[in-house]
């Protein structure tokens, strides 16, 4: 790998790219589980309640907060990418856009956590 390619990995946009990709992978892995849990309602309200009670375990709640952060981060990071692709790359704005995306995602996760716990 060239020296410039390694240097680019230190750029904040590379961090945003990695977070967007890893959050997308995590969400794609989580979705089938989410759909299967909701599908429990086919067997009635009580069956769904069994799964929902399981989500009250501290480890599951921590995972839920992390998932909300990843979902919000994938949303805000994706909006930044759409902006870059359809409006244009403005180098001076990237750090502000990435910081805003991270801030909004953290805010969503925090509000979710405060309501959940």
């Amino acid at each position, binding site marked *: 790998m060239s020296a410039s390619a390694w240097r680019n990995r230190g750029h904040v946009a590379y961090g945003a790219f990695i977070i967007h*990709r890893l959050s*997308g*992978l995590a*969400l*794609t892995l989580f*979705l*089938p589980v*989410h*759909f*299967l849990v*909701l*599908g*429990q*309602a*086919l067997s009635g*309200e*009580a069956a*769904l*309640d069994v799964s*929902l009670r399981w*989500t*009250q375990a501290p480890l599951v709640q921590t995972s839920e907060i992390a998932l*909300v952060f990843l*979902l*919000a981060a*994938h*949303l805000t990071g*994706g*909006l930044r*990418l*759409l902006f870059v*692709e*359809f409006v244009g790359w403005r180098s001076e704005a990237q750090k502000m856009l990435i910081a805003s995306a991270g801030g909004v995602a953290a805010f*969503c996760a925090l*509000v*979710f956590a405060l*309501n*959940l716990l």
Partner: protein
Amino acid sequence: MSARAETRLWLAQRASAAVLALCVAVHLATMIAAVRGGLTAAEMLGRTRGSIAWAAFYGVFVLAVSIHAPIGLRTVASEWLGWRGRSADVACTIVGVALLALGARAILAVTR
């Protein structure tokens, strides 16, 4: 895959992303409000059962995800695993169809 097909996938990825931006924003707001005071099946199903609006909303959501996620996986498989060609395309299509089927089942479960 031809350049035209690649372009179509690129467009489908961006179009589904635009739809998902709206769906995810609504879903986040709903989740944040719904978990306040604990989430029960009665409360959740009370909101969604018999609702054509929620069924339509989640139908669009699931359809957009079923397009967006497999195209993203195809890119990751190509760039990080070097997995390209027909086998990768077929695998990603299977993921998309599975997400669509499981998502449709979940919508049916919570809105019927």
